[in-house]
């Protein structure tokens, strides 16, 4: 049987998907155990026990300086920044993208500007943001927004602009004004695409968040990783990276679930 025709069933799929991850984990454990046999104080590839011990301190014991549970304070701070950045960018994508996509005069006026901003590497703007907005929360959120909003705006406006012309004409023959075309025809059809754009933007948003936190911050997942790097604390860095990956997967899954739940019509015939 050809490989293109070999479809994998549900339970087998989980098994197959887990296989490479398990193999990587085993390779790590073998190499780490090997290093520890040679040097019990090895810090580069910590064993799970060491990681659990270090993380337990961060998760359960209040920090002597700040009195906070460090791990949770970091998570909360990072999610706050990410959420604010992603939220503002999504709102901008919806409003600006919709207007650009539906209204030709707005598109003619603003699409060169959006394109221009989109091609600037956002990290190059970070110094400007730090100078203009200070080192606080605002500049970090602004970096995320500048980093992902233009791409999302262009995606939404392209999607709305590609709606069949027949639909727009039909809406007008039903008496719809420009505003009504926007809110009743374009907006609902842009929503599933918006959730999709959010999923795609999550990756870059994390990159900008960690970068901003690494450079100037006093709390946050990215800050912690770059802080403990000085002590070669791989036993903290690795669990933190895994935690970030887990958060990202959770958000992605949530967005897929929301899209299927809220916009069943956009996901094929079976609903």
């Amino acid at each position: 049987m050809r490989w293109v025709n070999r479809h994998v069933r549900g339970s087998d799929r989980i098994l197959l998907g887990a296989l490479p991850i398990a193999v990587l984990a085993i390779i790590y454990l073998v190499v780490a155990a090997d290093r520890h046999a040679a040097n019990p104080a090895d810090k580069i590839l910590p064993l799970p026990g060491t990681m659990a011990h270090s993380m337990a301190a961060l998760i359960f014991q209040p920090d002597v300086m700040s009195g906070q549970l460090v791990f949770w304070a970091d998570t909360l701070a990072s999610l706050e920044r990410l959420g604010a950045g992603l939220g503002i960018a999504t709102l901008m994508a919806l409003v600006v993208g919709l207007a650009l996509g539906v209204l030709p005069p707005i598109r003619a006026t603003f699409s060169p500007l959006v394109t221009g901003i989109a091609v600037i590497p956002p990290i190059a703007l970070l110094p400007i943001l730090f100078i203009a907005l200070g080192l606080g929360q605002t500049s970090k959120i602004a970096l995320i927004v500048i980093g992902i909003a233009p791409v999302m705006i262009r995606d939404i406006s392209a999607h709305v602009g590609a709606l069949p012309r027949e639909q727009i004409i039909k809406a007008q023959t039903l008496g719809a004004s420009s505003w009504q075309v926007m809110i009743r025809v374009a907006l609902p059809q842009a929503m599933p695409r918006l959730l999709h754009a959010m999923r795609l933007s999550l990756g870059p948003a994390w990159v900008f968040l960690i970068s901003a936190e690494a450079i100037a911050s006093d709390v946050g997942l990215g800050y912690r990783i770059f802080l403990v790097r000085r002590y070669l604390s791989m036993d903290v860095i690795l669990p933190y990276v895994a935690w970030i990956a887990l958060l990202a997967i959770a958000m992605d899954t949530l967005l897929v679930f929301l899209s299927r739940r809220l916009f069943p019509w956009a996901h094929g015939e079976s609903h």
Partner: protein
Amino acid sequence: MSAILSLRDVWVEYGDRIVIEKLNLEIADRAFVSVIGPSGAGKSTFLRLILGQEAPTRGSIRLDDVPLKPECGPDRGVVFQRYSVFPHLSALRNTMLGIECAQAPFSARLFGAARRAARDEAAAMLHSVGLADSMHLYPAQMSGGMQQRLAIAQALVKRPRILLLDEPFGALDPGIRADMHTLIKSLWRDYALTIIMVTHDIREAFTLGTRVLALDKRRHDPHAPHRFGATAVYDLPLRNRIDVAADDITASDIATILEARA
């Protein structure tokens, strides 16, 4: 019967390409006009003109003796071959949209008693196109024929002066197409509609229409085919009146009419 739509000396040109030249036409109230013609003979342009999607380069189009604005409006309903219904709305919501847009300029949504009234009206319209059992389906769950029924219901809810059909049954199976012919014929009678239908199917044009309009180029320059536009080369009134059943027209009738005119 008086003319509700009149085109006087209408020309459509794109740069030096002439698509329609010197088109004069009067369309009577309650007529069912079939528009036929080869590809590229300006059938779609003709439809876009009446729809208001584009303005004539020269000449005038008047609807109910008022010059037509070059913009689509609720006085002209349309059903395209595809994409005429909104995929994100159920059949009922699709049909209600026209009522909602008129009554709620800002939110385009109705609430309470107004909503119930709109829903009842939309439901009645869906019933009359045969979709009474499918009101809560989304277009993706409907067959091509059902989607076209929905598109017709959606347009008729606005009680348009003219209903424009752009190859509405072109993508349907022959059996379904026959059902749709019966449907549009009875709707045309019951709602006293004026219909302009563009079609590729000559048989369809003659069985449904009370008048068949053939668009083509009268003159042809082989070295510059774009320099002459199309106009109405045949304009055949049929005896296909309301009281005559459509099925009475046979192929030999069509041949007789064509020979008589040629």
